């Protein structure tokens, strides 16, 4: 994890993105001023509950926003090496869906969806689905494409690729299918891989292996990865940077150690504390009271305020700006304002953080000893 990131390595920069959906009940403001940067070779995780806007954000990058979605304002700048070998920057929000689809999807930006059962075509063989993108985007022969597909299958850890190449999705297990989906995503050597809950539908043992595969391939191909997940354990395993989203806004962001060991936003506290660690022995789980807000209504002040036991009076009046709390850590909470009263962390979380730090020190020490 590099502390200082080189501007020339930036592949994606999202600025002030606002997206709304027109529904039968009125306008839903799903994304409210999102800002995000992605650099080459790094991994960002977007964490949030359902309806927080994490999927909408990446769908916009892919140009696959639902028909009733509308980009109100903002830009998504994507920098890539074009056919002539020059660096080029385009604003994805200005392109038509068709243009994004033909020029970028699969070739430059690829996506792995949550459910491998529904993201594969049941009527096509595995081989055909992997080579489809290559044949469309690149001028290569079928033999060449097949050779590359077999190599990819091997890379994602599928044994006996020749046999699998001719099989249909239903003949594979869930974990195997997700590996195929990853192989398809990597078929045209993209620079950005978006994984939308890639392991939610899978078991823990298979989840661990799929995450390893993505990590390995990311290193080998120098890809930037965006993970969308609500599992903080997965985030801890894979991510370099974390963006926590709530009600369409990023409310806390920073590098992973800053956010996990020194969380500042009460929502992040709640998320961390409500996860049963396998070491918890306490009688009750910490639960965030209430439910996420309805984005049909206009949100005044901090969207999290009604569920926040630490809410200040100003939280109901004005939306907090992003406060810089040092390093790469940014938090949208009035509690980080210098004028705000000092707030003690919840007791449970304090204990959790202390034991996390202790554990990590122990792990680092063990690592050093193993090396020596």
């Amino acid at each position: 994890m590099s502390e200082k990131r080189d501007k020339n390595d930036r592949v994606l920069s999202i600025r002030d993105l606002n997206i709304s959906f027109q529904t039968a009940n009125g306008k839903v403001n799903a994304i409210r001023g999102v800002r995000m940067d992605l650099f080459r070779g790094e991994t960002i995780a977007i964490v949030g509950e359902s309806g927080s806007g994490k999927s909408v954000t990446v769908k916009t990058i892919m140009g696959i926003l639902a028909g009733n979605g509308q980009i109100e304002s903002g830009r998504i700048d994507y920098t890539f090496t074009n056919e002539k070998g020059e660096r080029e920057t385009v604003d994805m929000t200005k392109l038509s869906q068709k243009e994004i689809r033909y020029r970028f999807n699969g070739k430059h930006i690829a996506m792995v969806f949550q459910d491998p059962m529904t993201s594969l075509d049941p009527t096509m063989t595995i081989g055909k689905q992997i080579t489809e993108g290559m044949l469309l985007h690149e001028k290569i022969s079928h033999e060449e494409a097949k050779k590359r597909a077999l190599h990819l299958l091997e890379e994602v850890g599928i044994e006996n690729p020749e046999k699998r190449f001719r099989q249909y999705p239903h003949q594979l297990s869930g974990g195997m299918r997700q590996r195929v989906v990853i192989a398809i995503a990597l078929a045209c050597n993209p620079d950005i891989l978006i994984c939308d809950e890639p392991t939610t539908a899978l078991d823990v043992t298979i989840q661990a292996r799929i995450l390893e595969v993505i990590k390995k391939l990311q290193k080998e191909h120098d890809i930037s990865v965006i993970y969308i997940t609500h599992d903080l354990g997965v985030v801890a395993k894979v991510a370099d940077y974390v963006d926590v989203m709530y009600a369409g806004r990023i409310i806390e962001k920073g590098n992973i150690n800053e956010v996990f060991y020194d969380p500042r936003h009460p929502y992040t506290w709640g998320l961390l504390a409500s996860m049963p660690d396998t070491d918890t022995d306490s009688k009750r789980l910490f639960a965030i009271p209430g439910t996420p807000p309805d984005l049909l209504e206009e949100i005044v002040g901090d969207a999290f305020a009604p569920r926040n036991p630490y809410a200040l009076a100003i939280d109901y009046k004005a939306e907090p700006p992003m406060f810089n709390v040092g390093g790469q850590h940014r938090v949208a909470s009035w509690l980080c304002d210098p004028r705000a009263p000092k707030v003690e962390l919840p007791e449970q979380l304090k204990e959790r953080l202390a034991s996390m730090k202790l554990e990590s020190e122990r792990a680092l020490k063990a690592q050093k000893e193993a090396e020596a």
Partner: protein
Amino acid sequence: MTEINYSAEPLLHVEGLKQHFRISRNYTTKAVDGISFDIWEGETYGLVGESGSGKSTTGRSLIRLYQPTAGKIIFDGHDISGKLSADNEKFLRQNMQMIFQDPMACLNPRKKVGEIIAQGLDIHHLYSSREERNEKVYAILDKVGLSKEHATRYPQQFSGGQRQRIGIARALIMHPKLVIADEAISALDVSIQAQVVNLMRDLQDEMGITYLFIAHDLSMVKYISDRIGVMHLGYIVETGTTDEIFTNPVHPYTRSLLSAIPHPNPIVEKLRTPITYDKEKEGVDYSKGVLHKLTDTHSVLATEDEYHKWISGSHSY
């Protein structure tokens, strides 16, 4: 938590339960292939395993959504395996209830919440007047954290967490002895999961319910269960108290399962590599294994050789 009396007769006694599904003339899926376990009154028994391990099938066989192929199930002194007598069926339907995984799919969208919750009362004629019925519905709604007004609404007007509360209310209005929670929280958001788990725990303390908690999320199972059974491919490979399973796992499958849970601790998590387990490579045949007892409560399915190998093998974490 209430004390559990382990010397008493178990509330549920399962012996050699088998559930096979005949797919075609020459192929039968052996989803559950001879499992035995006991659940005592007032405790929570967690059943964990990967998908296809037979944990959900076990739950559904117990509540007799399926016809078990073989095995004996004794529920509070009543034999509920084989053909059910009218009395036993009535006892089973009133005293064992289920909470399903998907709160979106398990509620009839055309019925009001009040009707859904009261259905069990209606079927078994458990009230003498309309007022008494409504009183019971309101009381249970209140217990699960919803209000009286919610009874006249339809399921789609509720959020996921609220719908799961309705599912819980529906199960609890019968005052069941045993509740089977089949992945009851997997479909919910993290912050809502904690709310529902806390609710289930509170209700257990208050009403003395016994839970069979089926899940694949080990950290949640650890949190809620008193004892745990680990299932793999139709067999319970290891069972013990929560402490025994987590601090001294013996079976390699249990160990791989435990090591696969990602911890929300970035530095630790990035340095750790999970253990992998391949049944074929290790040459383990579950049908040959017998249950070896480590302690009174902790036992593991293994052959003689495997048992000694696993016991002496050093734990890698």
